[in-house]
């Protein structure tokens, strides 16, 4: 191996407005080595890699390649230094063949035969299975990924960056990819792989660098670490937030989800036999890496997501009846007398209409009231004024479009409206994302108040400290499966972190034996 690291970053800092995405990050990769970058969502992994690939430019800090300081101001510069990045979202032209996509943008003369031969040669060298003449739209996700990888190799890259390459692959495809990556490592290439799956980190990489909330935590040798240590680095020590938590009063089963399975349009399973119970007077937290099926789960309950099997039973506290909400539209659910409120993750794209003013947004839930064909704007206007007063929403007036409000105020408007509907079940997805401390506490207090009123609250969160202090029980999901349910009063961050990164279909070598089974039920 070379004396100097293939690529080394020193004290890299990058901010976007007030948000610090990377703060003083330093790391290095040698040739013939695989480095994993581990971190939760929003810890700054992708931003960091984009700076190496020339997409962003660091505010401060320096980058060295083979010991020489370089400036990478554009993807073209990155090319010069033989850096190739494989993005999470593929950048391919659908109607072109693999070879055409691979040579696209190169300034050399296009010669199909030559290019095809070179593609074949690369494929054989590293063991890719690819038909150079196949069109992209006929390809599976893993084939497309292969094209992306060959594309950077064709350009002579010897420092490869892969952004969450396994997120879209099946376990078998992941195995194949890893075999290829190991072969490339043995060939002397430096490889950086972004992931948040611990077992993959352990089975593939030589070193692991951990980021947390933009801060560089440290680099460890894979051989000298284990899942528990890595989780601790990833989630950090527990911080006390002093969120109040009362004992649930007379909890009773309100919403019973039994064994639901959902597929997305491509036929991939996004919820896999999920079962749980939400009780009145209790906050049920849902933890998991983003995209593990949280959104689909809430949308399935709200009647927005098609369910392939299973049932969602609602025990009505008034009539004492039990209704199955499966295959019902949001209107039908309401017609059953189910008071279900939902604060979706996408505030301005789903929960509210950004271009409408506060009054018209208040009306979203209630505009159908009244017998005439005309709207009644007086009650929503009163409601808007009440919410602005009670939740201290900062806005020029009730007729200001909500997209002009700051994130915290937008959320207060949305949560305020959903609570004003006097729900029996309140679902909130990432309700404090992007909010400052004060607004966050306003939201926690509102949720606690609802809990006190006997509402079954379902809280999907990403900050484990918050989940542990706020929730009575925490359900953890990973890749669409429930990986465990823990008691919020006794759970530790490490315990939840392990459940988050655990995969139910464990067939990675070396991964399975590290994982404890999540049998600690509340």
């Amino acid at each position, binding site marked *: 191996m070379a004396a100097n690291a293939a690529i080394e970053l020193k004290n890299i800092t990058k901010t976007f407005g007030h948000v610090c995405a990377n703060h003083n990050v330093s790391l290095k990769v040698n040739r013939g080595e695989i480095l994993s970058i581990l971190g939760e969502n929003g810890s700054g992994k992708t931003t960091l890699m984009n700076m190496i690939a020339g997409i962003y430019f660091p505010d401060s800090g320096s980058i060295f390649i083979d010991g020489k300081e370089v400036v990478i101001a554009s993807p073209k510069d990155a090319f010069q230094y033989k850096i190739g990045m494989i993005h999470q979202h593929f950048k391919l032209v659908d109607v072109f063949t693999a070879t055409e996509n691979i040579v696209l943008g190169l300034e050399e003369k296009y010669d199909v035969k030559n290019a095809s031969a070179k593609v074949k040669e690369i494929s054989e060298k590293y063991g890719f299975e690819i038909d150079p003449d196949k069109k992209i739209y006929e390809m599976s996700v893993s084939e497309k990924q292969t094209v992306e990888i060959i594309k950077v190799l064709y350009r002579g890259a010897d420092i490869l960056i892969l952004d969450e390459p396994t997120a879209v692959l099946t376990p078998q495809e992941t195995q194949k990819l890893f075999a290829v990556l190991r072969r490339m490592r043995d060939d002397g290439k430096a490889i950086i792989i972004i992931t948040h799956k611990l077992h993959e980190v352990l089975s593939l990489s030589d070193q692991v660098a951990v980021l947390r909330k933009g801060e560089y935590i440290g680099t460890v040798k894979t051989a000298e670490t284990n899942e528990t240590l890595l989780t601790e680095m990833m989630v950090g020590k527990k911080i006390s937030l002093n969120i109040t938590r009362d004992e649930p009063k007379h909890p009773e089963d309100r919403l019973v989800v039994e064994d639901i399975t959902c597929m997305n349009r491509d036929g991939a399973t996004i919820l896999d036999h999920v079962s749980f119970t939400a009780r009145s007077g209790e906050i049920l937290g849902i933890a998991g890496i983003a995209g593990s099926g949280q959104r689909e789960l809430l949308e399935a309950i709200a009647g*927005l997501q098609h369910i392939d099997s299973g049932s969602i039973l609602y025990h009505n506290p008034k009539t004492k009846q039990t209704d199955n909400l499966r295959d019902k*539209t*949001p209107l039908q659910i309401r017609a059953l007398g189910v008071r279900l409120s*939902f604060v979706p993750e996408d505030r301005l794209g789903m929960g*509210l*209409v950004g271009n409408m003013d506060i009054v018209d947004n208040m009306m979203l839930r209630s505009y159908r009231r009244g017998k005439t*064909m*005309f*709207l009644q704007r007086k009650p929503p206007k009163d409601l808007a004024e009440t919410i602005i007063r009670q939740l201290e929403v900062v806005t020029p007036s009730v007729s200001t479009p909500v997209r002009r409000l700051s994130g915290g105020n937008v959320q207060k408007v949305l949560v305020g409206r959903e609570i004003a509907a006097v729900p029996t079940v309140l679902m909130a997805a990432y309700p404090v994302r992007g909010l400052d401390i004060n607004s966050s506490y306003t939201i926690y207090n509102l949720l606690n108040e609802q809990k006190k009123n006997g509402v079954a609250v379902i809280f999907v969160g990403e900050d484990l400290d918050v989940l542990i202090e706020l929730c009575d029980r925490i359900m953890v999901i990973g890749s669409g499966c429930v990986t465990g349910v823990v008691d919020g009063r006794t759970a530790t961050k490490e315990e939840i972190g392990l459940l988050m990164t655990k995969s139910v279909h464990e067939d990675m070598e070396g991964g399975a034996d590290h994982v404890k089974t999540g049998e600690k039920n509340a």
Partner: protein
Amino acid sequence: MSKPEKKMHEPLIHLVKRDAIPWYQAWAVRIIAVLAALIFSGIITIILTGLNPLEVYQKMFEGAFGTDRRIWNLFQNVAILLCISLAVTPAFKMRFWNIGAEGQVLIGGLASTACMILLGNKLSQPVLLLVIVVTSIAAGAVWALLPAIFKAYWNTNETLFTLMMNYIAIQLVSYFVFVWSVPKGSGKIGIINGDTQAGWLPVLGDQKYLLNILIVLVITIAMYVYLRFSKQGYEISVVGESENTARYIGINVKKVVIRTMLISGAICGLAGMLLVSGTDHSITRDTAGGRGFTAIMVSWLAKFNPLYMVLTAFLIVFLEKGASEISTAFRLNDSFSEIITGIIIFFIIGSEFFINYAIRFRKIRKGGKAQ
């Protein structure tokens, strides 16, 4: 190739999206735009023709308002254009790009024509008029319904679909003009029922165009109220702004799409009826005269507000009339008037850009370049 001293430069000019600016500032920008357009086209006039631009503008004004007949004609044209603009507005508000108004108007007009020719002497006048109104509205609605159903159920591209429906309507009109031509084989229909006036809309007072204008006035107010104050109008806005939000609150998006397009097509059909039964008493393939497309601009310029649409429709028609007057008065060819119209519309549309964006120049920093 890339040297280490390469630094990032702040561009000289950059655009910043503005917050809302007060209405009077917005209008000031628009008025400045019109004045700038007049000055600019004045300069162009001098360069290209050597004429005094003030005289040219005066002629334009005369072309639109010169005589009583011209004023009525102007208002009739405004009314029809406004009617079609109102028709496309609910669809546009829903982000359904209905560019098939031309065809929907024509097919409505064709339905009126058919009733007048085939039923002209068989029904009493009030019954015939009722039949004409109903069939032309229905014809326009059906023309819009087809793309709406395909959009709602199979998510086909409504722009292409409605566009193609235009050509079908034009071909149908050509065909029936041939079938019903008077005298046979002349390829022209001429005035229908000129002797009996069967199926002609009644004339209020002695003003041929007054009824049309009043009908469109009523539609304007009705459309304003519908979009602003009705539950259905609210649903249209929500679907247009965000389909996800619409689903989230339980709006049946398919139903709203179909219902809204029915309304859009129905009003187009009615506009066709106003043209055939109300004023032309005949039909050609040019009866809609491109107004189905001009209406799109009218609607956008007015930001889908029916009341502003009165102004924008008026502006467009005024420019058209004025422009055709100057080309005859000064014996210029048509292209010149089109240049003038183009410049003025370009400036007006361009002014919206300055209302939404502010231009910032690079600050000159002390000590030379940035960092």
